């Protein structure tokens, strides 16, 4: 196989893996019992899913101008997803949308 074909195949695998992780993230957001748990699904598999999609895209496109854009999207995804999740989680906690029956310990309550 030529290097181009190898990159194409690796790119295809990355695209499928990223799509599956994004699907799992969506299922998690839908199924998890409360907002804070849902934010776990909205950060970890979601971020890795996007990064894998970007990796797949980069391996298929292989042009410097596209790669620059792809790297930027990845950097900003890594920087912003946790911040967004924290803001939503904090708002949910402060407005009492936490299912206390599901919490083993809450050390924020006695602050």
């Amino acid at each position: 196989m030529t290097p181009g074909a190898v990159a194409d195949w690796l790119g295809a695998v990355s695209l499928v893996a990223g799509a599956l992780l994004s699907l799992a993230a969506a299922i998690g957001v839908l199924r998890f019992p409360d907002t804070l748990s849902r934010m776990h699904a909205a950060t970890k598999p979601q971020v890795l899913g996007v990064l894998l999609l970007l990796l797949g895209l980069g391996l298929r496109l292989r042009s410097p101008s596209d790669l620059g854009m792809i790297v930027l999207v990845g950097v900003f995804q890594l920087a912003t997803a946790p911040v967004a999740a924290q803001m939503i989680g904090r708002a949910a906690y402060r407005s009492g949308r936490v299912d206390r029956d599901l919490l083993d310990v809450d050390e924020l309550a006695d602050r």
Partner: protein
Amino acid sequence: MTSPGTGAARPSGTSRRAQAWAGRRRDQVIAYGWLVLVWNLFWGDFSWGNLLGGLLVAAAVLVFFPLPPVTFSGRLRLRGLLVFVGRFVVELVRASAHVARIAVQPGYVPRSAIIAVQLRVPTDLGLALTAEVLSLVPGTLIVEVDRDAGILYVHVLDVHGPADLAASRARIRDVERRIVETVGSDAELRMVRSARVDKEFS
């Protein structure tokens, strides 16, 4: 990059102020260069027109949307950075696999907990980076930050007992140590390595 404040002689008042000024100036130059680079990457190619546009836009951003100065007293350590990135990728993959698995597991309702963790090196930069990274490694998500006390309130997903909470505390301290080993000063490095792990809040 050199690290200010680690010289042998104790700087006097005026030279300390001059040093702080130089530090701020350096941070601004780095921010300026980064913004120009981002602008050019957004347009997809480097040309004189994009460079000029980038210089103008970056100047406008820095003048009209100034950010509070970041107290960065350390330096970038290449070895720490490599270790940090390697571990981060591994943990991101593990975290994603874990959350994806319990998301699709039929009939499973994960239990969780919120724990308070006192950081050993409560600088603004360390606090922010630790909080950010915690949301992307297995099990933890930042909920609230007590900036003055240097305490992070962390939501832990999929808890089965006290052992899981202890493991999460250890993981959070690990993340903090790796971040200090990447961007911390020598003094912060000593702090994070020598501070004993007290059993707080538990």
